[in-house]
């Protein structure tokens, strides 16, 4: 039992828990890809509104970081930021990433209006690089983290499995094989217009870099799925966090790995120097995968990087002793007793 004052160790702050701030970035991927603009199609939520008591204007995308300082103004604690990003209509993060492959049969109207064909759509979970195909992950231009470990949902609507007899075959939902008409052979898949609703057939004259409204997928239930809808199923990812807040040493972000498989195992986190009072800008590069068709008619995923602006509003309050005195809450440090 200690009989002496060991305040020196206590003031080192090693017994204090840091303020953890969770920032959720919600992205409307379909709208972003449609408008090629992210700022108005993303929302930043965090858990600082309740206890910060700041007035927060809608759409300001500001995270309030309240730091604690000593009476002499020196920093007492640092805050920690954690980012999680999700899509408005993306697959839920609770879906295990080792979900087995799915086979979805999608009838596609043929060039002639009298014959109905079925084109299999294969979704693969999760993250096998060998089946990823053409949609390679992008490297940050500044040489940032490689996104390979994250993996992506792979939907290749342009490919059809080949049967043992060499003929292109398709699997129905019951798992049996049916012989597909010759029009389904890969080599015969051609670019089609929007009216045909042929899979992986984007309009080359689209306003958005070659992807227009022509790419649609026709399901067996006669339900139309646009390429942006398919793209919105894929969870967005943050590839980099940078900007004045990082350059000025306000926060120190890094990509951390987690054994939690349901969250892909990766998340961004940053420590904040709460001695730097004020509002600081930072930028996030958000990567969306867009379903497209290449010149060969194969489906592929093309990464699209968009920039989102966020703000940190850092403020400080002097740490006080919760044991109130007749004069109010006590100040720290305490003076030793006689």
């Amino acid at each position, binding site marked *: *039992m*200690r*009989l002496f*004052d*060991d*305040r020196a160790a*206590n003031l080192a702050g090693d*017994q*204090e*828990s840091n*303020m*953890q701030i*969770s920032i959720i970035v919600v992205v409307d991927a379909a709208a972003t890809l449609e408008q090629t603009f992210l700022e108005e199609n993303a929302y930043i939520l965090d*858990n600082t509104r*309740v*206890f*910060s*008591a*700041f*007035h927060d204007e809608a759409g300001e995308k500001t995270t309030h970081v*309240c730091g*604690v300082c000593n009476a002499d103004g020196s920093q007492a604690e640092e805050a*920690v930021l*954690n980012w999680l990003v999700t899509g408005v209509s993306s697959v839920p993060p609770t879906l295990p990433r080792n979900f087995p492959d799915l086979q979805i049969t999608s009838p596609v109207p043929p060039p002639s209006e009298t014959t109905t064909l079925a084109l299999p759509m294969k979704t693969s979970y999760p993250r096998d690089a060998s089946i990823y195909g053409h949609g390679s992950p992008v490297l940050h231009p500044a040489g940032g983290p490689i996104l390979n470990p994250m993996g992506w949902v792979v939907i290749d609507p342009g490919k059809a499995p080949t049967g043992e007899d060499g003929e292109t075959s398709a699997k129905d939902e019951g798992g049996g094989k049916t012989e597909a008409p010759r029009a389904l052979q890969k080599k015969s898949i051609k670019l089609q217009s929007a009216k045909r609703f042929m899979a992986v057939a984007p309009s080359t004259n689209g306003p958005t870099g070659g992807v227009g409204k022509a790419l649609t997928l026709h399901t067996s239930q006669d339900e139309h799925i646009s390429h942006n809808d398919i793209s919105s199923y894929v969870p967005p990812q943050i590839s980099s966090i940078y900007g004045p807040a990082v350059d000025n040493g306000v926060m120190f972000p890094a990509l951390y790995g987690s054994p939690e498989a349901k969250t892909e195992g990766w998340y961004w986190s940053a420590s904040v120097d709460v001695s730097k009072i004020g509002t600081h800008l930072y930028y996030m590069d958000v990567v969306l995968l867009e379903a497209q068709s290449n010149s060969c008619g194969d489906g592929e995923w093309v990464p699209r990087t968009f920039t989102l602006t966020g703000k940190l509003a850092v*403020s400080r*309050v*002097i*740490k*006080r*002793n*919760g*044991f109130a005195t007749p004069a109010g*809450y006590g100040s*720290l440090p*305490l003076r*030793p*007793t*006689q």
Partner: protein
Amino acid sequence: MDVIALLANQNPEKAVFLFDDSPADPIHRKRGTASLRSPVYPGQYVIWSLAPIDVQTPVWISEIDFEAPKYDPHPPGAATIVDQTPAGELGAAALENGLPAFNPVWARHWEGYAPLCITPGSVYAYRLGLQFGGLSGRTISLEGPSLFFPPSPFAGIPPGAVV
């Protein structure tokens, strides 16, 4: 402190784990439970710190309320939650020039000195107030932990005595 379990109305015995760094006999002090008995001496410097198991859920000590000292040689009973408010005072409602109030809950530290006039064998039970972040701002008060002044360690401790 298992914040999620507390918010889910779990028994505090399964969600709150109190420890102190006293080298005294831990058996009768219920170390690791919500009914911790911490030995202190007159003038002893005491500091409370909180570590939530789930670091993503904010929780802070909002109050430590001591009851009148009493002599109680018997170990304390199980801890209980005596008060739960759906929306407690966050301590940051007031604004001063647009900044958080004078004493927001997250800036409060809990440290002090045991009184010099405490007598051997006296027990100072206290109520631990916890405040959670989130939309509810819920508060929970926990009864059970206490400070006590054991007899002098230099004197012989009779067999069977509770320390």
